[in-house]
């Protein structure tokens, strides 16, 4: 075989060289095309971040200076300091953190168990119940927001609280409307989380569990000792998504947290807060201050992403979200 090739090469040396050259140049053009494409799209993706951070440190003079676009001539951190107070950062952060943190923990615990229930236990009505999970995914939250609001305003289950406490409970302006549904595996995009966990558990080998059962461990123990530790990628994926989505969700938070605003609510009304608190309506001050506020809100997420990015990318790829 080799001999034949050698003979062929010696017969047409120029052709062979041409072929490799053509191949190489084609490869280079290919590479150039993708390099340009990805640089372009990468720019669009990073652009808002650069825009936010460069704008946020500009002084009013820089905003009015037409020659200053990216790099501020007189960078100032006063914007951050001002906005920190205007949006009442510490207390807003605590409000957001308490919602996002607690709900994420509950989502991880409950949705993983429910997903496991759908993945590994066979019973007759399983298909119908899982169809219900899918159904919850396509209901717009606005559809049920009002009855839910009234439900939490006069919280009572079967008249129990009315009988014992002499009145129903008012859960408005508390984080209970976020936590109570999460206890039962309901809430923002939980259908998707259950789906992710179900797919992941379905993809795990049955032998793992069987080994546990044969060694005499019960269902609960098998789950916590064998299945859950092997599903870490799915846990990281769902944990990150749930945390981030609760961090930036606005509709529900604006509805229930009226008196104790969260970061995302502050973000929506940031311009109003700045002008009201500083008594300045000049855009050369308001715009940088606004972006300082935006930066403060998304900074924790960026840090989180930089830390968890590697796990996250791998985990989603491996979690087999796909059927």
């Amino acid at each position, binding site marked *: 075989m080799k001999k034949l090739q050698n003979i062929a090469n010696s017969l047409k040396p120029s052709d062979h060289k041409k072929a490799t050259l053509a191949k190489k140049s084609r490869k280079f053009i290919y590479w150039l095309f993708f390099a340009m494409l990805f640089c372009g799209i990468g720019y669009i993706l990073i652009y808002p971040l650069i825009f936010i951070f460069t704008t946020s440190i500009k002084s009013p003079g820089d905003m009015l200076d037409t020659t200053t676009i990216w790099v501020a001539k007189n960078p100032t951190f006063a914007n951050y300091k001002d906005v920190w107070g205007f949006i009442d950062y510490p207390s807003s952060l605590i409000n957001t953190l308490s919602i996002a943190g607690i709900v994420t923990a509950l989502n991880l615990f409950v949705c993983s168990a429910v997903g496991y229930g759908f993945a590994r236990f066979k019973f007759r009505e399983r298909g119908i119940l899982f169809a219900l999970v899918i159904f919850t995914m396509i209901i717009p939250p606005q559809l049920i927001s009002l009855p839910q609001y009234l439900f939490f305003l006069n919280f009572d289950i079967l008249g129990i609280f009315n009988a014992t406490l002499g009145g129903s409970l008012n859960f408005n302006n508390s984080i209970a409307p976020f936590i109570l549904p999460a206890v039962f595996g309901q809430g923002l995009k939980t259908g998707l989380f259950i789906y992710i966990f179900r797919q992941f558990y379905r993809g795990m080998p049955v032998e793992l569990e069987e080994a546990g059962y044969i060694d005499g461990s019960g269902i609960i123990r098998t789950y916590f000792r064998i299945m859950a530790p092997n599903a870490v990628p799915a846990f990281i994926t769902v944990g990150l998504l749930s945390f981030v989505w609760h961090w930036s969700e606005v509709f529900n938070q604006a509805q229930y947290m009226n008196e104790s605003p969260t970061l995302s609510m502050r973000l*929506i009304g940031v311009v109003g807060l700045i002008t009201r608190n500083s008594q300045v309506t000049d855009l050369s001050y308001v715009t940088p201050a606004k972006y300082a506020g935006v930066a403060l809100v998304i900074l924790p997420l960026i840090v989180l992403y930089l830390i968890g990015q590697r796990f996250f990318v791998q985990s989603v790829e491996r979690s087999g979200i796909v059927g």
Partner: protein
Amino acid sequence: METNNSERKTRAGKAPKMPKKTPRAGELLRRKANAGRIITYFWVLGFLIFIATPLFQSLRYAFSNVQISLGNVNLIPLGLDNFVKAFTLDAEFVPLLIDSITVIIVDIVLITFFSLFIAVMLNRKFKGRALLRAVFFLPVIITSGALVYVMQSDVSAQFAGEAGQQGMPMLQTVDFKEMLLTLTNNNRAVLVLTDAIDRVYQIIWKSGVQILLFIAGLQAISPALYESAEVEGSTGWESFWKITLPMISPIIVINLVYTIIDSFTDYNNELLRYIQSTAFGSMLDFGYSAALAWIFFAIISIFLLLSVGLLSRKIFYLND
């Protein structure tokens, strides 16, 4: 243990020819089924309390005039009045509905094509892939309707023009838009197109999860398929249409559903903001708001069912 034993005996008595193993295996299966029922019915309980009940109530609200005083809800039945009002009297609702639905449909098409293209590219092996992926999944983490909303309002502020400060460069297609409009004699279809161009950066920012889903799907395709295709002399182009696309087709449906549900929590969706404001804003018309939400939900569900129904004929499942 005793009950287990007795159960085994009675079973063995009924079917003496069964091998000894079966009752135990059946036992475990039954126990597992019950465990599964306990877990999933716990979820169903939550579904009944937090989803089904409010859903039923909002349906009742949609057909009545809701009056709330001191937390007491009074329903005055109106029949179809709320729905009639939405389509005949409300000047804002129908345009918002049409806009919102066209935006969702255009988004679905663009996001699906874009994310599939990017996923196929990112699935190749090359240097710096890890970095690129980190950049492409950035939107998954940081994207939020609130953020886009805040940045958008900056662009509409005229400050951008006055101080020579740049807003979003993607949004500055005004001249191009006017040129197209004059060329086509103010055709509305052009507006859909130019709006899509205006929202290019939004669409790219919205595609993060979809790209992830596609990459996960691409990695599930066995390389053996491509190898054998290559041996048979198939080009990359042919492999894409004959292998990649059929194998990835189920994910297209998942992405479609995801894109729609993603728009439900998007603060940029003007229709949803309007629905929310009719209930909690100045109007305080809860029944009307519920009716609007149901109209939107019904249209989206019909669209979803139709598209999934149409696509499902084309979907290819390897295991079937």
